[in-house]
């Protein structure tokens, strides 16, 4: 076992797959010699050559198109979109094209593509760098959307994503890149896509979160413990498809749930989680399912991120509301 940051775990996963499968190609803006703007691809071009790890011109739409075309030639592309706020430029290549390839060609062509992209607030980035746009991706049939919150999950999920024969959007929260280290096996391992992880067991209320909000939930849970409230924290890890079994089993046990996301209330995937719970477990609920989210404005200007982004205090407040319903 090694102690790794999440970014190191991500690099390690790509290195593993580049070594294992010669069809894996890593490309994007500044991912080659520069090693990526966050050093996610550090050293990979040197180790595997310019035919395997390469820079592209600055155009997201064509990065998506390049990935689709390379997949048609039997490659397993791992393109990077430098910040997920730039998704809008490549929306057609992702949602309009690669997500539909298998279906539109009646299973004759596929898009085994993993789109990696950083997102997430708390690091005072300029405009359209931190926006949480996973909700847009989760609404597109044909995609899977993975959001790890720990170094361990990041490595196992990224290896699974790259090996998946359908397109996976792999979103990396910038605040989690280097904020802590965790135990990561040096050998390869996979984590099944579509499987949540219970990060903290509890019996009084279920907190369902993903990305940086997993850590906010864990912090909230340890404060709630002091007040005698035992919260279970589910890290979704994959936001599309959801791990319904894990969510419902937890709610049936605790009878209360709060869904926590960094995205605005009208965005993200919390509404879907709440809808699934009320359809499948309403008779187990002692209180409505409440949501912790950002307000429905455009993403915060950097100087007021702290006030805008949801945090553990918002979570504690909502837990109090469901406990006292």
């Amino acid at each position: 076992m090694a102690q790794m940051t999440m970014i190191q775990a991500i690099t390690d996963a790509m290195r593993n797959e580049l070594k294992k499968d010669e069809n894996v190609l890593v490309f994007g803006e500044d991912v080659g010699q520069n090693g990526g703007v966050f050093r996610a691809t550090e050293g990979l071009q040197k180790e595997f050559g310019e035919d395997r790890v390469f820079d592209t011109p600055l155009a997201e739409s064509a990065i998506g198109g390049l990935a689709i075309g390379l997949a048609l030639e039997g490659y397993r592309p791992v393109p990077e979109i430098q910040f997920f706020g730039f998704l809008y430029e490549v929306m057609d290549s992702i949602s309009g094209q690669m997500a539909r390839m298998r279906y539109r060609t009646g299973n004759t062509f596929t898009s085994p593509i993993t789109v990696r992209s950083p997102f997430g607030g708390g690091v005072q980035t300029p405009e359209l760098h931190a926006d949480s746009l996973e909700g847009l991706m989760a609404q597109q049939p044909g995609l899977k959307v993975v959001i790890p919150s720990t170094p361990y999950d990041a490595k196992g999920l990224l290896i699974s994503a790259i090996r998946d024969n359908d397109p996976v959007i792999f979103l990396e929260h910038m605040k989690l890149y280097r904020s802590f280290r965790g135990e990561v096996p040096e050998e390869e391992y996979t984590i099944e896509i579509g499987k949540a992880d219970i990060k903290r067991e509890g019996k009084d209320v279920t907190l369902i979160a993903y990305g940086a909000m997993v850590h906010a939930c864990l912090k909230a849970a340890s404060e709630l413990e002091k007040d005698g409230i035992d919260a279970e924290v589910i890290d979704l890890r994959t936001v599309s498809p959801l791990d319904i079994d894990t969510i419902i089993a937890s709610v049936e046990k605790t009878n209360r749930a709060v869904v926590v996301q960094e995205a605005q209330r009208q965005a993200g995937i919390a509404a879907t989680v709440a809808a699934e719970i009320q359809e499948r477990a309403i008779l187990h609920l002692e209180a409505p399912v409440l949501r912790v989210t950002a307000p429905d404005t455009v993403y915060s200007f950097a100087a007021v991120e702290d006030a805008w982004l949801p945090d553990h205090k918002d979570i504690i407040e909502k837990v109090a509301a469901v406990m006292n319903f």
Partner: protein
Amino acid sequence: MKHVLEEIENKFEVFQVLNQDGEIVNKENVPDLSDDELKELMTRMVYTRVLDQRSIALNRQGRLGFYAPTAGQEASQIASHFALEKQDFILPGYRDVPQLIWHGLPLYQAFLFSKGHFHGNQMPEGVNALSPQIIIGAQYVQAAGVALGMKLRGKDAVAVTYTGDGGTSQGDFYEGINFAGAYNAPAIFFIQNNYFAISVPVEKQTAAKTLAQKAVAAGIEGYQVDGMDPLAVYAVTEHARKRAINGGGPTLIETLTYRYGPHTMAGDDPTRYRTKDLDSEWEKRDPLVRFRTYLENKNVWSEEQENEVIERAKEDIKEAIKKADAYPKQKVTELIENMYENLPYNLEEQLKEYRERESN
């Protein structure tokens, strides 16, 4: 300060081999085609003209769905395809069904594409092509990727894609040729300039005097060709293909052509934006007329031969539409099964639900 615009635009002259009277006007660039190959090219063009006429009729009878007429573009579509090899990969636009058929897509499947059946998009093994792209420009960025893949694999093959004059205004058009240029990838990009994007004339797309000169923005070769001239289109495509597989990079080819029919059969009425004079002027340039004259003068084509092709096309089309009509209807369960290799829980649940519905 020196103005370079005029200088650049003067470099893009219309390349022509056969004039509208069927006379060779450019001896040094006559492509090296045997009599049999010339006959085969004419056969395919005549066949495609019949296919267009029958497709329009079948659409009007409600036996076909989405259909974008091709009459007038036979030289541009068929002669360009004639210069390709089986290993080349085609990324067609929505009007480029004929190229797919001659690349190996069975006719009944082309009809199923028109009717909206997924089997129409299931390319047979060994047919290197995608089904027609509806999002104008998307085929261009994807072609850059296919071409880069071929280069990395060391294949003797090219990626070939087609768009129209309107499509040259899209961002993906520029990104596609620019990426292929930056990677020196073996791609051939066609612009079939039929002067109208639905009702909008090409002058409203751009102030550029030619569309071929847009290649300059990518730093790649560009040619403007008489798109009603099968020999010119063939010669330029063959040249671009050779250059590409020899590591010379991509080429942008503008074919000047015309569609005699409407934009699509979905209610477009070209009399609202095109004059009769313009139509009849282009009919004089018909690729079939000039190629027929050329071949008859060479004594390799006759009215009898042409009638044989027409009859054969009609027979094939009749058989194909019957086969398309008889093809099993699609089920929701099939649509679900074609989404992913391993279905996620939501689709597993929905698959069960629709299996029950379909068994009742």
